[in-house]
């Protein structure tokens, strides 16, 4: 079984639209949306939720005023200044370290596990999908990403599917790191802008750091062909396969508005052909075949 993770560094380069187009093309796969912070893939795949689970993150401190003597030790120890002068915990600031809980001489602080999101196993017209929703302003996004990727793998094994296609989050931090470990390959979707190039370089460094092979495609390539060439040159220097170019095409927005993939919106378009060629190169690549395993 192999997992392809689609990332970008910069947000808004077209990751999820391209991912949804792959959902139309790929066979025998599980879809996984690992962008738990701002998940959008479900807007195009229209999942029918079959199973729903709570995601328990870490604990958050709660002070019981009847036991608290206001000695101030917790405020002294808390490195996040999450405890007010009135001895109330700011749940947004609380890091969940539990130091106040362990040191309170009156045992006045409890540490209930908080439900900080939900995750789902769904049926879609493209096959099974595992996705999640992290609560607003919550921590532990990396933990939730790790969890749903494990569940996607279990689901693939159970249904004897040999491919997982995962939509990753933007950036290079905690949820991205959790998204890429153990993947057979990464597809980096970038755009030909100064920021697209800058962010793609950082995400390529991240891929190298965690030793996951990366491949690159340039979306909206005709917006600036000089930048497109600069991106492709950089990708080659970083020993990443350059898969191809996708034109700047309003078909992505039009199909998104209708809740469709570009292939469902228009079965034959130049842009669609470009995406098909990229997909073929991915599934025929050594990374997605003999080398490596999920």
């Amino acid at each position, binding site marked *: 079984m192999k997992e392809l993770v689609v990332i970008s560094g*910069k*947000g808004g380069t077209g990751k999820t639209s391209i991912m949804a187009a792959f959902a139309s093309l790929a066979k025998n796969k599980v879809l996984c949306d690992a962008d738990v912070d*701002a998940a959008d893939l479900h807007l195009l795949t229209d999942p029918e939720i079959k199973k729903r689970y709570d995601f328990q993150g870490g604990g958050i401190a709660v002070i019981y005023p009847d036991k608290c003597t206001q000695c101030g030790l917790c405020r002294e*120890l808390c490195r996040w200044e999450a405890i007010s002068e009135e001895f109330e915990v700011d749940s947004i600031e609380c890091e969940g370290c539990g130091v106040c809980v362990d040191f309170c001489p009156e045992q006045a602080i409890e540490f209930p596990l908080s439900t900080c999101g939900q995750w789902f196993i769904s049926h879609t017209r493209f096959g099974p999908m595992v996705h999640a929703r992290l609560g607003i302003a919550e921590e532990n996004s990396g933990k939730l990403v790790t969890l749903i990727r494990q569940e996607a793998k279990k689901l693939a094994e159970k249904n004897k599917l040999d491919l997982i296609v995962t939509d990753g989050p933007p950036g*290079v*931090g905690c949820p*991205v790191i959790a998204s890429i470990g153990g993947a057979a390959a990464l597809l980096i979707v970038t755009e030909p802008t*100064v920021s697209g190039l800058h962010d793609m370089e950082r995400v390529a460094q991240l891929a190298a*750091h965690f030793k996951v092979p990366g491949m690159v495609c340039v979306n909206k390539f005709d917006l600036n062909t000089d930048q497109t060439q600069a991106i492709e040159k950089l990708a080659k220097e970083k020993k990443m396969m350059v898969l191809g170019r996708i034109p700047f095409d309003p078909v992505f927005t039009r199909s998104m*508005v209708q809740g469709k993939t570009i292939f469902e919106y228009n079965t034959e378009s130049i842009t669609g052909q470009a995406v098909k060629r990229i997909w073929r190169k991915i599934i025929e690549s050594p990374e997605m075949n003999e080398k490596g395993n999920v």
Partner: protein
Amino acid sequence: MIISIASGKGGTGKTTVATNLAVSIGSGVQLLDCDVEEPNAHLFLNPVIEEKKSVFTPVPKIDEEKCTFCKKCAEICRFKAIAVIGEMVLTFPELCHSCGGCMEVCPEKAVTETGRNLGVIEIGHKNNVHFVHGRLRIGEAMSPPLIREVRSYTRPDQLTIIDAPPGTSCPVIAAMKGTDFVLMVTEPTPFGLHDLKLAVEAVKLLGIPTGLVINRSDIGDNRVKEYAEKENLPILMEIPFDRKIAEAYSRGELIVEELPGWKEKFLKLYDNIKEMAV
């Protein structure tokens, strides 16, 4: 006054709005790029960097001479960053959240702190705009401490513009919390709307006044405007899709410097924000 610029969805134009707004106002303004995972504002501002420093977060260091292997440090750590196996203490600095619990609990004072590199902060200026950004070290997972470090450069006597990261979880909260106004940049597409709603919920939780900029306002559909009306979110500016703007962006150019009429629009946006911020 501190204005944070956020979006939920990435790539909607946060950096475009932050940099053009800062340059339009020109003096007495600072721009803090808090998108430390993928900082981009410098690509458009081209600031002169005057100072660069590395930022560290404390992580435990064990003095094995003093350690009695009592395991108290491993027991208190809720992030599994310390393990005691027989007469050996293993620390996993990348898992540590720097709470200091292990140091506090150790009866032998065998735990001290050393630093884990989070990334760098760069400080500089472009004409009269003061500029600070952070760049998370590749491989580092935790961005909020570096974001807080960038924000520590806030000058209370100036207008501070914060370019926030995308999303709705801890890094965004670290960038928006305690600011006077959140300017949301969105696009009128289903993805833009979905993530805007999440970001608006986060701002409500923090109780900060907010308004919208709709970028590429003539693509997509009308649902963002319907939502804004229903939620009483004022639309402070609309930027229509213009290939010239997209191409200028691709080259790292500012709209206010390349296309006529935009500086006035950004100054008007600032006037509107001043009226709304508390």
